[in-house]
């Protein structure tokens, strides 16, 4: 289920962040427990707990003692801001490099973006 390479807790944390960004997990919604995550992904519960701890440290989740973990109110906006900071470096630049390598003119890439923007494709 995991690519068994990058630490599993980081992969779980990324997945929860993706769910927060997409809206699959809403603000103040409770996330599954460490044990539920562990059983679902067939991983050690300490690993799942580590992912949750990382998300608490990053203020994506907050803890209600004795109840569980919840998505913080500002999590989505925070992740959107962070995503915007890295978007060009991590998404656009490699795309432009790939387009150049295989010989797609950037004007074609721009046209495609405009079509998507106008809802034509």
């Amino acid at each position: 289920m995991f690519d068994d390479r990058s630490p599993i807790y980081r992969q779980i944390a990324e997945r929860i962040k993706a769910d927060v960004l997409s809206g699959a997990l809403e603000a103040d919604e409770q996330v599954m427990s460490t044990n539920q995550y562990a059983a679902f992904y067939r991983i050690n519960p300490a690993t799942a707990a580590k992912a949750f701890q990382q998300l608490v440290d990053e203020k994506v989740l907050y803890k209600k003692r004795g109840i569980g973990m919840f998505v913080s109110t500002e999590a989505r906006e925070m992740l959107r801001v962070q995503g915007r900071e890295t978007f060009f470096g991590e998404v656009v630049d490699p795309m432009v490099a790939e387009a150049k390598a295989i010989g797609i003119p950037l004007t074609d890439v721009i046209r495609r973006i405009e079509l998507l923007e106008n809802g034509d494709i």
Partner: protein
Amino acid sequence: MRVDVTGLTVRYGDVTAVDDMSFSLESDKIYGLLGRNGSGKTSLMSVLAGYRKPSGGTVLVGGEPVFENRRATAGISLVRHVADAADKSDKISEALTYAAWWRDSWDARYADELLELFKLSRDEKIGALSLGQRSAFGVTIGLASRAPLTMLDESHLGMDTPTRYKFYDALLQDFMRNPRTFILSTHLIEELAALLEEVVIIDGGKLVLHEETDSLRSRGIEVTGVADDVDGFVAGLTVLSEKTLGRTKSAMVYGSLDDEQLAAARRAGLELGPIALQDLFVHLTEPVGETR
């Protein structure tokens, strides 16, 4: 159950199976004990279970010496692969009764659940079980013992893949319901890796390392790029292995890289990738000079 091994040595005549080994395990974690055949895993676990007297050093389980100590061994369960300790003419039901005598923590109802999970009949004779069924029987004994220190020595090796997954799920579920210390030895490292909180790697009777699984995993880095660039980059680093394909070279490096090294790799156009735990294990336990 906490385990403290200090200067442990196990000798059989002239052969030293465990050589001055020291490590400590905390309560309520799942540990992987990894080593090649003949590395001393089984000798080590036999001593931890109190089956064998150490030739030197000490082994404390829950703070107590285990050899000939009924109070300590009542809290320890060791299942060797394919449950070879059971009498072949016994029925499963009889073998379970004996297992229950041994320890107060035995859960008969859970044993029945596991028999059902693994589709084993109580009336079956141990000697008539297939390899896979014997493995399932061994695992049943190990899990239902609910022993504060439970050791499974390759006990799931004979299971087919769907049965192994059932075992992993049962182990995890029961560990979460009833936390205890597990030591699992296996050759199927990648399959089990996600279940292990920490790993202990031994080789030639000596401790190679004891580390959190996740941090060990992040210690291995595969560096790939043009051969000369790779050579320049890995000079001075611990290289576990290298291979070349035309002008491309790939080197497995052990240790973490600092920001400066990461930046240097990026400038040189080198690709950095992680290494699977199993590959790290292979290289960390490889006799010197075997590969190069």
